[in-house]
């Protein structure tokens, strides 16, 4: 079976700074794959390199068996969409939700824009009453739902999720995570999800890659992590840290 995403020896360099150093991974179609690490570990850079937002210095990225060149074509962006971390920054402040959702449809020449916008809003649990609002009239969770609707409106097969819930309250995070899981199940989507929160990644993903300083620390299945079957001290440290503060006597 052709993997949905295959990355081989990928490096990203900005002048002398190596943001991503020789990373390889494969993601099967319909799989949910997680990237974990602290800030500066290169996890977001990896995602951005796939989306064409970071320069690839070495290595190859293959999506559905097709090797990606320096410039992505339109068909790629129909297939692969991204959801960003900060819903306060990723929506145009002077466009209504309707306009935001229309833009990708117009670019890709979709028909039935009316019906698609209504269905997309419905699917993310917002309803048509939100259609002509501006993003500043929405809460953080509602904005992230709009961002998800915008990504899904092109009917992609893969979603790149860059910390989709870290700007949200815990209860809203649960709602958005549930929505993402439900959408993945109904649409057979492939997820590549970045998060600094081990609990979120193990909840959402089947397998995950732990990263540090632009390199790979280890790759493991979520079930291994849950059973504490980790091989490196770094991952062990992350696990301990995720359990909260512990007073040393």
């Amino acid at each position, binding site marked *: 079976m052709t993997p949905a995403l295959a990355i081989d020896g990928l490096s990203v360099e900005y002048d002398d700074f190596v943001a991503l150093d020789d990373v390889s991974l494969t993601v099967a179609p319909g799989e949910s794959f997680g990237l974990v690490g602290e800030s500066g570990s290169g996890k977001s850079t990896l995602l951005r390199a796939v989306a064409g937002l970071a320069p690839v210095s070495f290595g190859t990225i293959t999506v559905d068996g097709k090797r990606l060149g320096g410039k992505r074509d339109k068909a790629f962006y129909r297939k692969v969409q991204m959801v960003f971390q900060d819903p306060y920054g990723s929506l145009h402040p002077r466009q209504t939700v309707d306009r935001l959702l229309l833009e990708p449809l117009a670019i890709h020449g979709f028909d039935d824009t009316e019906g698609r916008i209504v269905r997309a809003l419905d699917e993310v649990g917002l309803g048509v009453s939100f259609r002509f609002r501006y993003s500043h009239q929405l809460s953080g969770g509602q904005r992230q739902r709009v961002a998800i609707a915008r990504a899904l409106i092109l009917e992609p097969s893969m979603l790149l999720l860059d910390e989709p819930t870290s700007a949200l309250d*815990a209860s809203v995070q649960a709602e958005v995570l549930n929505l993402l899981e439900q959408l993945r199940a109904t649409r057979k989507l492939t997820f590549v999800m970045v998060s600094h929160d081990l609990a979120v990644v193990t909840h959402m993903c089947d397998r995950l890659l732990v990263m540090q300083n632009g390199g790979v620390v280890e790759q493991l299945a979520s079930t291994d992590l849950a059973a504490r079957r980790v091989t490196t001290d770094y991952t062990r440290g992350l696990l301990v840290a995720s359990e909260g503060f512990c007073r040393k006597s």
Partner: protein
Amino acid sequence: MSALLGVEDLRVTFPTRTGVIEAVRGVTFTLGRERLGIVGESGSGKSQTGRAIMGLTAEHGTIDAKRLEFNGIDLLKASKAERRALRGRRIAMILQDPKYSLNPVMTIGRQIVETLRAHEPVGKAEARKRALDMLSAVQIRDPERVFDLYPHEVSGGMGQRAMIAMMLIAGPELLIADEPTSALDVTVQLDVLAILDRLVAERGMGLIFISHDLRLVSSFCDRVIVMYAGRIVEELPAAKLSEAQHPYTRGLLNCMPEIGADRHPLPVLDRKPEWRT
């Protein structure tokens, strides 16, 4: 033991074009020399409670309370000058993100020295020495070097340590920490918390720890207050968090994904209108 801080029926309101917003609606608690956590989601009034105690409520907001006392000083009747004398000297506050709360055009050392000399008549050399001591107290390895750095030249964790150093140098009795580690990586978070924990214990300060993270707060504090829509819905000892009664507290605890727990979908909070009253 006399209480360090007494708050009774605290209300903070803001007039807006569409009517009055009640950010805090009748909050009552007392604080001794202990670690108190205030937990709630965005808009629950937790930060406004902290700001009202510190005297940092925005100009157009109104603070109203039956009692707001710090060490026998009535904060409601205190003049602006009296409040300013307290602020930084006896009550200090650590803010969330060192990127925004430190002065970007002043070196870290100068900012710490400025705080110290605003409150105590000390000479330049003495102030510098004490600032360096404070920087090593927050476990900055090379204080001499960090002293001369600008905030943009240090990492988030280092910036937050500098912030703690700045807030503690005048030796406050009460420290309000508003999401002190939310902008930091999980591993760095624990280092910063450990430093805060040690200094608070050593100096016998009272601490109000404001956060949205119920688990983190309960692992760090002695007592936890849970706020919802401007009110306290539950108050309990941190060790007894698992015995929380209020559905909001239980819901908050429940909705977080856990490593090893296979719960699909995650339980979500069903907000009841009666929680507001």
